[in-house]
């Protein structure tokens, strides 16, 4: 990796802490990712992206900023990326997947806050996230109480937080509210980018994001093969990278990876033997570099075949209908498309149960592990309904955070679950 010290200093990062973070990340990546056997060649690109996660990509985004483009940071798949891209902005999912800066974060928020919220506060407060430093706008959303209140504090710290109101129900009134929120977001993006969203650039944004979704859908479909051509860890990584890579390049490289995987399937090549136990993970998002559960499961000889998660299926399941002829119509369709997302912040949320059942079937999963971040009440609560809905399909619920202290117990639980599934 080139020397980016100057760039990091200019961004105001804490250089000492940051060097420590990169060292841990690179060591963890080596142990968890590079030690895997039989990886597709197409993963080399994603290995490269990770090795340059705070390097080349930051330089690219900095260059884009210098060329007048605006950077929008997000934390949720509800934020319409199409609008950001239509205004020639850069959309980045912000750092929230590692246990860093907890001490700093706990000066502002309670100890028993979910790891993801603590992490996005911690990353910023400890001076570890170059992306957040590059943002012109940070978009929050009202998906859960923890995030909602944390954004108020985050606004005090950064001064550039904008919150979208996500309804909690999906009735006609809620749809109206959400539609008006999408319109308000469009106006906000126009104001900060000083660009007008036109039919033409909105269509372009829509097509870019749909392209990315199609590539991710294609990848997801290929994981149904037995033996599965790609590990769950690698597929998770591709999904994580989708949140901050350049969308055109990402789509291209993911499709290239899929071509290779299609070849593998034809030849019967897989990352595990045929008949290996197949696990679907369902629940809270796994922000990069949270690879904890996947590495425990795959380290126990099973393979993860899907993520019913925001970093996963919920991000790409539904395409936007690109057949619109005015900006207003496009925004309307966009609002409809986003309101299809079955986040646990909605009540009721029975679509999610149906989606989990259909994914289990489609991906030929032998069992479902329900993953909730500790203190992520919406998903912790829904675990009960998911278990009921799955009936006889083997099911286990798991609550954990980013720390490593419970790995021994989790490993025992996962292995015992796999013994039951066998």
């Amino acid at each position, binding site marked *: 990796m080139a020397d980016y010290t100057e760039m990091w200093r200019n961004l105001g990062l804490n250089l000492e802490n940051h060097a420590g973070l990169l060292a841990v990340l690179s060591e963890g990546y080596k142990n968890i990712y590079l030690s895997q056997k039989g990886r597709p060649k197409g993963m080399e690109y994603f290995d490269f992206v990770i090795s340059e996660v705070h390097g080349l990509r930051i330089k690219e985004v900095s260059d884009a900023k210098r060329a007048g483009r605006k950077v929008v940071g997000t934390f949720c798949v509800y934020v319409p990326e199409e609008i950001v891209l239509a205004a020639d902005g850069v959309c980045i999912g912000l750092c929230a997947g590692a246990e860093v800066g907890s001490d700093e974060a706990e000066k502002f928020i309670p100890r028993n806050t979910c790891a993801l919220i603590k992490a996005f506060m911690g990353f910023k407060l400890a001076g570890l996230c170059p992306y957040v430093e590059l943002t012109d706008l940070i978009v929050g959303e009202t998906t859960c109480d923890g995030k909602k209140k944390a954004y108020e504090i985050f606004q005090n710290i950064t001064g550039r937080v904008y919150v979208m109101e996500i309804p909690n129900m999906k009735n006609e009134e809620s749809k109206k509210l959400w539609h008006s929120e999408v319109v308000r977001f469009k106006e906000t993006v126009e104001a900060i980018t000083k660009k007008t969203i036109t039919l033409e650039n909105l269509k372009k944004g829509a097509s870019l994001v749909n392209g990315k979704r199609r590539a991710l859908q294609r990848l997801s479909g290929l994981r149904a093969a037995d033996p599965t051509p790609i590990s769950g860890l690698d597929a998770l990584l591709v999904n994580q990278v989708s949140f901050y890579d350049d969308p055109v390049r990402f789509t291209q490289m993911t499709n290239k990876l899929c071509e290779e995987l299609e070849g593998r399937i034809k030849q019967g090549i897989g990352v595990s033997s045929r008949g290996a136990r197949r696990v679907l993970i369902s629940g809270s998002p796994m922000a990069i570099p949270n690879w904890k559960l996947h590495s425990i499961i795959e380290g126990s000889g099973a393979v993860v075949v899907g993520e019913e998660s925001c970093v996963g299926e919920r991000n790409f399941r539904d395409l936007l209908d690109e057949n619109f002829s005015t900006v207003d119509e496009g925004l309307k369709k966009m609002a409809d498309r986003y309101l299809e997302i079955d986040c646990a912040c909605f009540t009721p949320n029975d679509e999610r149960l149906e989606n989990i059942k259909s994914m289990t079937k489609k991906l030929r999963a032998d069992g479902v592990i329900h993953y909730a971040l500790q203190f992520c009440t919406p998903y912790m609560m829904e675990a009960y309904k998911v278990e009921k809905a799955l009936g006889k399909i083997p099911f286990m619920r798991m609550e*954990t955070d980013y720390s490593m202290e419970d790995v021994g117990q989790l490993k*025992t639980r996962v292995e015992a679950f796999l*013994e039951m599934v066998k």
Partner: protein
Amino acid sequence: MKALGIDIGSRYIKGALVEKGKGVDFKRAETSFNPLEKCNEMLNEMPADRVIATGYGRHLLEVHADIKTITEIKAFARGARAFFSNCHTIIDIGGQDTKVIALNEQGNVWKFEMNDRCAAGTGKFLEIMAKNLGYSLDEFGAKALTAHQDIQLSSMCTVFAESEVVSLTAKGVAREEIAMAIHRAIINRVASMAKRIPLQAEVVFAGGCAHNPCLKTLLAQSLKRNIQVASVPEMTGALGAALFAEEDGI
């Protein structure tokens, strides 16, 4: 043919030697700071044709001696059925985790509950509290049973409970009364875990803590069930692993 099961727990390593489906020899050693050495000693003392390791430290033997492993949950299921052929529920209070396991008719694991990272309600908690009160682990349960009052500990957290015990001692409360409160706190915790899965007879209390008469009595009261305890309950996991090793099926 002899088969050995080694159960590497957080406090003790247990070995069970099996011949023709029967346990013929049992050994126990403290896990210590060098569990691998202890395991090797046991492998030498109890020579066997086949070995399976289980318990928290099972992967140690998988890595260093290429020995197959199963989880203690699966091992306990098999071992408990060997002790009690009609066992459907197993309660194990281990050194660092507590488990409740439900078995189906065939004796396979059907559901299980296990505590997460916290030491509350585990054998380690019991050990720390016995030491604080100046009891040996062997006498702790029997002394607790001599209590007459109904004192409750408000916290199950090892750290908070410890300070609560200190303040009860300072108030002059007799130590057997405090001992009883500690046992009751553990059983409350275990019972609430047990109630998350359908309890079916027979209920077997396995693991080293099953030697403690107070825990057994309180468990029976709390679950309103008859509780079975084997003569060597701490060997349940090792025996189960040995039986799997003997039939070479895991």
